[in-house]
């Protein structure tokens, strides 16, 4: 499947781009993260501490063990600091 990946704040800075499209057969967010980490050191750096990351699937907050079936957009970012 084709997924649009979005990165925000320091995740975007570590990966070096705000968005990209990937072809993947990952079943869960965790599988996708493992695939990305294996690609290049900058992904390894961005995803080194999952406890300090949040994920949204099609713009809804989700857990890292959530399935990716039917999902089009996956966003990774640090805990939000609005207000």
């Amino acid at each position, binding site marked *: 499947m084709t997924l649009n990946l*979005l990165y*925000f*704040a*320091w995740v*975007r800075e570590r990966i070096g781009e705000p968005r990209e499209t990937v072809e993947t057969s990952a079943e869960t967010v965790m599988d996708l993260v493992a695939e990305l980490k294996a690609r290049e050191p900058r992904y390894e750096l961005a995803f080194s501490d999952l406890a300090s990351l949040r994920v*949204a699937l099609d*713009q*809804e*907050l989700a857990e890292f063990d959530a399935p990716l079936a039917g999902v089009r957009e996956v*966003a990774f*970012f*640090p*805990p*939000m*600091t*609005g*207000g």
Partner: protein
Amino acid sequence: MAVPVRISVQAEDFDLATELSGFGHAANTGATVTFTGLVRDDTGALQHMEIEHYPGMCEDAIRKIADEAANRWALTDCLVIHRFGRLVPGEQIMMVATAARHRSEAFAAAEFLMDYLKSRAPFWKKEVTREGAEWVAAKDSDEDALSRW
């Protein structure tokens, strides 16, 4: 009855008087509460703040939070404005306004909105000083604040 909830995620500054001119005019409104958040500079070193946001998800997340507040406290009006982009110390970052029959509901709804916007609306703040730039870390107390609701 559907509650009028207005949300704006914008780069531009806002004028409080203009935003509130038509606010809370329903006959059953007895109280309005407004809160405005400003860019604070504790040390005198802050040059500016960059606020990054997730377009689309921002509006949806804020609307969900505002709808919940509106239902829970039977609000008669509700407004949330949140800015993004480059802001200097003293500038307005965001505002919430709530209108209800009584002040206790208006105050509670405004506090609820603020607590949830802090850690559930997809914004990220970066502080830029002469020494460099640093992302503002979320605080455990922000997450703890949600448990009281």
